[in-house]
C-alpha cells in the first residue's frame, strides 16, 4: 500500500484556498490553451490513421527543439530496487544523447493517477512518456487522444501507433546467478523468497534452479511467496525461516534489502535482484543480473528524434546490453567467474540454450521435450510450472 502519496496532497488543499485568487489570471490562459489543444487533439485523432506517417515527418522538422521525455515511477526514484534501475536508465539517456530534456515523477499510482499524469505530460507536448511498471491499460485509455506523444511501458503486450513496450530476458542473468550460487561448496538448499507466483518470477526462479543444478544436481531451491512486492518484515521473516529450515544460500526476487541482511547475519551466500548494490551485504553478496534499461531508452529516443520510431515490443537481452551482470562478491571463486563470463558470452552469441529439453517440472512431468526449447518470442508465456529441483508450488485457484 502507498497511502503516502495521497496523504501529502492534503497540505496543499490549504494552499489552494489562498492561491485560487492570485492564480486566476494564469488560469484563464491555461484554460484557453487547454481548450484549444483538446480541440486540436480531437481533430487529429480522427485523422490519426492517415497522419501517422506525417507525424514522423513533423518530428524530424522539430529536431532543433530538444526531445522531451517524461518518466513515471510508481515508487521512489531512489528505492534501491526496481524504480532505481529505471532512474539509472534515464540518467544513461541524458548522458548519451544530445538535445534531450527529461523529467521524472515518483510515487504515482496506477489507475486514475497514471491517467492524469499521462494526460498532463501529453498535453504539455512531451514527445515521449515512459511508464516503468505495467501501465498498458491506463495508457490505452489516454494515448489515442494524443497521437503526437509516444508512450512506452514495461511488460505491455499490445501496441498502438504511438504505444510500444519493453521487457527483458532477466532469466538469462538469473541462470548465471544460479550457476554462481550453485558453485559454492556445501550448498544444498537455496532459499528463494519471491513476490507473487506470476510468470516472470517463476521464469527467473526456474532459470536460477537450472543454473544451480548444473553445478550441483543435488541442490534444491525452496521458494516462499511473500504475496507482496515490498514488505520488509514479511521478507525478513521468510528468509529467516528458510535459513532455520537449513537453507545455506539465499536469493531474493523481492524489492527490500531484508533478505540480504538475513544472509549477511547467517554468513551465507546471497543473490540479489536486478541492481548492483553489493554494499547491502558486503560479505554475502554473490551476484545478480542487472536491468540496464538505458540502452533501450536511448534507442527509442534516438529513433523518435530521427523520425524512424515504430511501435515495438522489445524483449531486451544480454546481446542488446539490456540485461547485464553485477559485480561479484568475495565468496565467488575466480574459476566460477571465468565460467560465468564464458557462458555469458555463449548466451550473447546464441550458442548456449539452457532451456533446451528435456526439462521436467517438479512433479516429474516433461514440460520441454527433447529437442524443444523456449525461444525469446515465447519467453513471456513461460512459466506456469516449477522446474525439477524447486521445492514449492504455484497456488492455483
Amino acid at each position, binding site marked *: 500500500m502507498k497511502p503516502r502519496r*495521497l496523504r501529502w*496532497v492534503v497540505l496543499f488543499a490549504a494552499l*489552494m484556498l489562498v492561491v485560487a485568487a492570485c492564480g486566476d489570471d494564469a488560469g484563464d490562459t491555461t484554460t484557453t490553451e*487547454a481548450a484549444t489543444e483538446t480541440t486540436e487533439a480531437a481533430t487529429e485523432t480522427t485523422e490519426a490513421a492517415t497522419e501517422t506517417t506525417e507525424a514522423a515527418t513533423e518530428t524530424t522538422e522539430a529536431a532543433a527543439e530538444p526531445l522531451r521525455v517524461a518518466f513515471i515511477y510508481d515508487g521512489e526514484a531512489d528505492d534501491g530496487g526496481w524504480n532505481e534501475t529505471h532512474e539509472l536508465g534515464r540518467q544513461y539517456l541524458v548522458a548519451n544523447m544530445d538535445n534531450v530534456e527529461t523529467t521524472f515523477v515518483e510515487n504515482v499510482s496506477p489507475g486514475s493517477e497514471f491517467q*492524469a499524469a499521462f*494526460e498532463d505530460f501529453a*498535453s504539455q507536448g512531451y514527445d515521449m512518456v515512459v511508464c516503468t511498471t505495467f501501465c498498458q491499460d491506463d495508457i490505452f485509455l489516454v494515448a489515442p487522444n494524443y497521437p503526437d506523444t509516444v508512450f512506452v511501458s514495461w511488460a505491455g503486450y499490445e501496441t498502438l501507433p504511438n504505444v510500444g513496450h519493453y521487457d527483458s530476458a532477466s532469466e538469462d542473468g538469473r541462470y548465471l546467478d544460479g550457476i554462481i550460487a550453485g558453485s559454492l561448496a556445501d550448498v544444498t538448499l537455496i532459499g528463494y523468497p519471491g513476490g507473487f507466483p506470476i510468470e*516472470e518470477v517463476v521464469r527467473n526462479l526456474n532459470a536460477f534452479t537450472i543454473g544451480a543444478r548444473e553445478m550441483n544436481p543435488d541442490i534444491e531451491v525452496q521458494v516462499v511467496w511473500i504475496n507482496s512486492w515490498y514488505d520488509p518484515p514479511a521478507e525478513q521473516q521468510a528468509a529467516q525461516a528458510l535459513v532455520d529450515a537449513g537453507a545455506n544460500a539465499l536469493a531474493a526476487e523481492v524489492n527490500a534489502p531484508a533478505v540480504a541482511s538475513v544472509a549477511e547475519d547467517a554468513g551465507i551466500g546471497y543473490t540479489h535482484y536486478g541492481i548492483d548494490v553489493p554494499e547491502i551485504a558486503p560479505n554475502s553478496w554473490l551476484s545478480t543480473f542487472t536491468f540496464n534499461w538505458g540502452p533501450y531508452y536511448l534507442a527509442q529516443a534516438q529513433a523518435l528524434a530521427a523520425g524512424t520510431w515504430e511501435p515495438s515490443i522489445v524483449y531486451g537481452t544480454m546481446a542488446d546490453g539490456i540485461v547485464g551482470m553485477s559485480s561479484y562478491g568475495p565468496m565467488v571463486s575466480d574459476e566460477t567467474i571465468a565460467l560465468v563470463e564464458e557462458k555469458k558470452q555463449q548466451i550473447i552469441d546464441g550458442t548456449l540454450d539452457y532451456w533446451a529439453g528435456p526439462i521436467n517440472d517438479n512433479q516429474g512431468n516433461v514440460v520441454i521435450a527433447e529437442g524443444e526449447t523456449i525461444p525469446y518470442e515465447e519467453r513471456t508465456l513461460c512459466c506456469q510450472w516449477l522446474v525439477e529441483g524447486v521445492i514449492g508450488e504455484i497456488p492455483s485457484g
Partner: protein
Amino acid sequence: MSFTIGTREILAEPRPLPSKTVRYLVPVLSLIVGLMIGAVILLASGHDPIAAYKEVANRGFLGELPMIGTLVIATPLILTGLAAVVAFRMKIWNIGAEGQLIIGAVAASGVGLALGEHLPGWIVIVLSLLAGVAGGAFWAALAALPRAYLNTDEVISTLMLNFVALSIMNYLIFSSVSFWRDAERLTFPSGRFIADTAFLPRFWGRLHIGIFIAIGAAVLLWWILRSTKWGFEIEVTGDSGRAAAYAGIGVNRKIVSVLVVSGGLAGLAGGLEIGGVMHNLDPRALSLGVGFTGIVVAAVARLSPIGVILVAILVAGLNNSGVGLQTMGIPDDIVLLLEGIFFLCVVGGEWFLRNTIRIGVAGQPVGERSVP
C-alpha cells in the same frame, strides 16, 4: 489544563459554544498559518512558494484537463469521506473503508464479468454498483456485528479487515488463476475487463458519471442525517449512547446499520473505480489509501457531507497537481514535511475552536481577559 510561563499562568477552558465568527475564522486562520509556514519551508529549501502555489492551482484546478483529472480522483474520495462521516458522527471509528472499497471493487467487477456479456449495459452497471455497495456493506458487517453484540473494538477489527481484503484481492489476481484474472495476459497478471457496454458513461473527457453519483450520495446523506429519524438517532447516539438507550433507540442495531451504510459507501467507491476508471480488478490501483484519505477528508470537512465534496475535490486537485510540482523539482520529502505542519495547524485550529485561552498571573485567580 494550564501551564506557567514565568509569572504568567496560561489557562485553557472549554469554550461552551463557539460563535459563528470563531467557527469560520479559526479554520481560515489555521489555513493561512499553514500556508505561511509552508512558504517558509519552500523558501528554505530553495523553492519559490508563489510559483509552487500557482502550479498547484494551474495543474490541479484551472482548466479542463486538470479539472477532469481532479474530479476523477475526487470521486472515490468523496465516497470514502462520506463513509467516515456517517460512522464518525456516531463515534464509531470505521477505519476500514480501504478494505470495504476493495471488497466492493471485487464484488462489482465479479458481477460485471459474470453478467456483462448477457444483459444490457445499464442493467449490468446498476447491478454491479449495487454489488459494490453490498460487498462493502458485507465487509463492514464483519466488524459491525462483533462490535454491536460482543463489544469488540471496531478500530482494530476494521483495520485488520483492510489487510484481509487486500490479501484476498492480491490472491485473486497475483496468486491464482481466478475468475477475475485474465489468464491470457502473462507479461503481468491483471484482471479481466468487463464488457465495454458495462463501462460507466463518460461525459467530459475521462470523467465518468460516478462524480454525480458521489455528489448525489453526499447530498442524500446530508438530507438523511438532517431530516430523518435514522439521522436523528445517529445524532443522539453519537452524543450520548446512554441517552440513546434511554430514548428507546436500539443502539446495537444502530451500530450495525451505520457501519453497513459506511461500508456500503466505501464499497460504492470501489464499484465506481471498476466501472468508471479501471474496468478490471487491478490490485495496484485499488490499494492507494483512498480509504484512509477519506478519514482525513471527513475530519477536515468536520464531518459535513457537503463539506466532504469540497474537501475531496481540493485534496484530489492537490494530488493531481503533484506531477506538476515534481516536475518543478520539489521533492516528495519536503512535501511530506509540509503535510505534517498542515495537519498540526488543522488540529491546532480545532483545539482553539473548543477552548478559550486565559492568561493570568501565576497563583492568582484568573481574570476575564480572553484571547480567542
